[in-house]
C-alpha cells in the first residue's frame, strides 16, 4: 500500500527536525555554522518550511506571556500549578491501579510520549528513527545501534567506556583483559565480562540482556551489584535491581532489523514498532492484548503494520501518514 504525501504536509521526520532546530537555536548556543545549516535545511524542502511555520505559530502563542512585565511570575505560577496537578493525577492513577481498573487501556490512549527524538547532536554515534547501524570500535568491539539511539565513546585511561544516551545498543566485546569494557547509563554501570549483550534505556530504567558470557550491573546511587549470566536479563533504576528473568534470545534479532514476537500483546508490538516509525501509533484498548506471533520487519514498520492487518482482526487507520491508530476490524463478524 502506498500513501500519497502531499507536498505541503510535513512528514514526521520534518517535524522532528524542526523541533530539534528550535531547541538548538533558542538555547543561545548555536554556532554560526549551525545557523547556516539550519538555513540550508529550511531551503532544502517545502515540507521543512511548513514545519518551521508551525514552530513559529506555536512560539507566537507565548508572545503575550513573553511581553508581559510579570512573565517570570506567570511562568513560575504555571510550573507550580502544573506540578501540583501532575501529583494529583499521579495519586489518582495510583488509586486506580490499586482498585485494579483498566489502567492499561487508559495508558494506551494517552498521547504518546515521543520516544523517537534523539537529541544527541554532540553524541559520538547516533542512529536515526527507523535505522539500525553497526559500528566497529577501535578495539575491535562491535556495537549495533537500534532505532533512534545514541552513545558516546571514551577509551581514555584504563577503561573502555560507552555512555548510552538514548535507545538501545547491542555489544559484542573484543577481549582485552587490561581494559575493562563498561556501559554507563543514568541508572548505573554495566561491566562486560567477555560477552554479547544489549543495554536499553527505558524511561527511568535500564534493561540489560545477556546473550553470551556475563555482565555485572551496578546501580548508580545505591551501588548494588549483580552478575547477569548468559540467557538472563534484568531491569534496574539508579537505586535497585529488579529480579533476574530469562532473556528472550529472539530479542537480539533487532540488530538484523527483525522484530520477533511470541504471543506478545499487540500493544507491546505496537510500542516497539513505534520506536522505528516515530509519530503516533495507538492501539484501541479492546485489542491491546491480542497475542501476536511471528517475525516482522522492524525497519520497515509500515510493511509490518500491513502484515499485522493481514493476520489479525484489526484495521489500520491513518489520520496522517505518521498518526496511526490500530482499531478492531469494524462491524459485526463477516459483514462486508
Amino acid at each position, binding site marked *: 500500500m*502506498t*500513501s*500519497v504525501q*502531499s507536498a505541503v*504536509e*510535513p512528514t*514526521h521526520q520534518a*517535524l*522532528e527536525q*524542526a*523541533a*530539534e532546530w*528550535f*531547541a*538548538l537555536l*533558542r*538555547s*543561545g*548556543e548555536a554556532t554560526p555554522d549551525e545557523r547556516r545549516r539550519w538555513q540550508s535545511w529550511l531551503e532544502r524542502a517545502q515540507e521543512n518550511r511548513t*514545519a518551521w511555520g*508551525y*514552530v513559529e505559530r*506555536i512560539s507566537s*502563542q*507565548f508572545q*503575550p*506571556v*513573553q511581553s*508581559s*512585565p*510579570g*512573565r*517570570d*511570575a*506567570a*511562568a*513560575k*505560577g*504555571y*510550573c*507550580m*500549578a*502544573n*506540578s*501540583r*496537578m501532575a501529583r494529583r493525577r499521579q495519586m489518582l492513577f495510583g488509586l486506580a491501579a490499586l482498585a485494579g481498573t483498566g489502567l492499561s487501556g487508559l495508558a494506551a490512549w494517552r*498521547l504518546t*510520549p*515521543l520516544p523517537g*527524538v534523539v*537529541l*544527541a547532536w*554532540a553524541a559520538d554515534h547516533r542512529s536515526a528513527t527507523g535505522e539500525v547501524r553497526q559500528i566497529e570500535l577501535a578495539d575491535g568491539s562491535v556495537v549495533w545501534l537500534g532505532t533512534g539511539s545514541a552513545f558516546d565513546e571514551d577509551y581514555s585511561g584504563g577503561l573502555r567506556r560507552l555512555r548510552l544516551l538514548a535507545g538501545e545498543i547491542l555489544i559484542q566485546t573484543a577481549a582485552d583483559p587490561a581494559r575493562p569494557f563498561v556501559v554507563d547509563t543514568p541508572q548505573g554501570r554495566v561491566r562486560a565480562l567477555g560477552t554479547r549483550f544489549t543495554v536499553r534505556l527505558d524511561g527511568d530504567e535500564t534493561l540489560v540482556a545477556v546473550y553470551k558470557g556475563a555482565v555485572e550491573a551496578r546501580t548508580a546511587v545505591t551501588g548494588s551489584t549483580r552478575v547477569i549470566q548468559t540467557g538472563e536479563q534484568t531491569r534496574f533504576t539508579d537505586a535497585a535491581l529488579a529480579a533476574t528473568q530469562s532473556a528472550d534470545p529472539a530479542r537480539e534479532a533487532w540488530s538484523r532489523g527483525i522484530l520477533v514476537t511470541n504471543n506478545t500483546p499487540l500493544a507491546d508490538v505496537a510500542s516497539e514498532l513505534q520506536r522505528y516509525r516515530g*509519530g*503516533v501509533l495507538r492501539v484501541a484498548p479492546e485489542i491491546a492484548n491480542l497475542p501476536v506471533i511471528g517475525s516482522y520487519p522492524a525497519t520497515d514498520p509500515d510493511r509490518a503494520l500491513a502484515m499485522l492487518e493481514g493476520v489479525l482482526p484489526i484495521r489500520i487507520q*491513518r*489520520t*496522517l*501518514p505518521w*498518526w496511526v491508530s490500530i482499531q478492531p476490524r469494524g462491524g459485526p463478524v463477516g459483514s462486508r
Partner: protein
Amino acid sequence: MARGPSTAVASDAPSSQIESLYTHHHGWLHGWLRRRLGNSCDAADLAHDAFVRLIQKPRRFDSAPEARAYLRAMANGMCVDLWRRRQIEQMWLEELAARPKAVAPSAEHQVIVIQALLEIDGMLRSMPVKAANAFVMAVACEMSDKEVAQELGVSTRMVRKYVAQAMLHCLMLEARSVAIELPIHVNSAAPVGTGSA
C-alpha cells in the same frame, strides 16, 4: 436564527431535541456538578456551558442513559478545565503578589496572560511535567538552557531534550489539527499507480 418553534414541531428538529434534553437532564447535570464541585454557582455555570456546547455541536442520543453518559463525560472534562484554570490563575497571582508592585501588569493585561497560559496548558497537558515546565520557562521567559537546568536541577542536555520533545509534541498537535481541517487526502480513493507491471 429562526424564530422559536414553540408549538407543533417535528419531533426531530434540533432545537426541540435540545429543549427535550434540557428539560430532562439539566437539573440532573446541575446536581451532579454541584456534588462534584461543592459550589452551586460554578455548577450552574458549567451546566449552562455544557448545553451551549450541545447547541453548537448537536448530537443525537438514542436513549436517556446514553445522553447522560455523554453529558457526564463532557462535564467531567469541564471540571478538570475549570480546576486547572483556577490552579494556574491562583499560582500566578500568588507569584505576582510576592514580587514588587512595579512589575504588576494591569488587570486587563492579566486576563490576556492567563488566556495565553491556558492555551499553552491545553497543548502541553499530556506531556511529562518536567518537560512541560522546562519548555514554558525556556520559551516564555527566554531563559538559556543553563538557566533552566539550574532551576530544574537537571543537565543542560536534558533541558534541550525537554524543549525539543515539547515542541515536537505541539507540532504534532498542530499538524493534526491542520490535517483534520483539510479534506482527507491520505489514502484517497484515487489509486496510485506505482509501477505495477
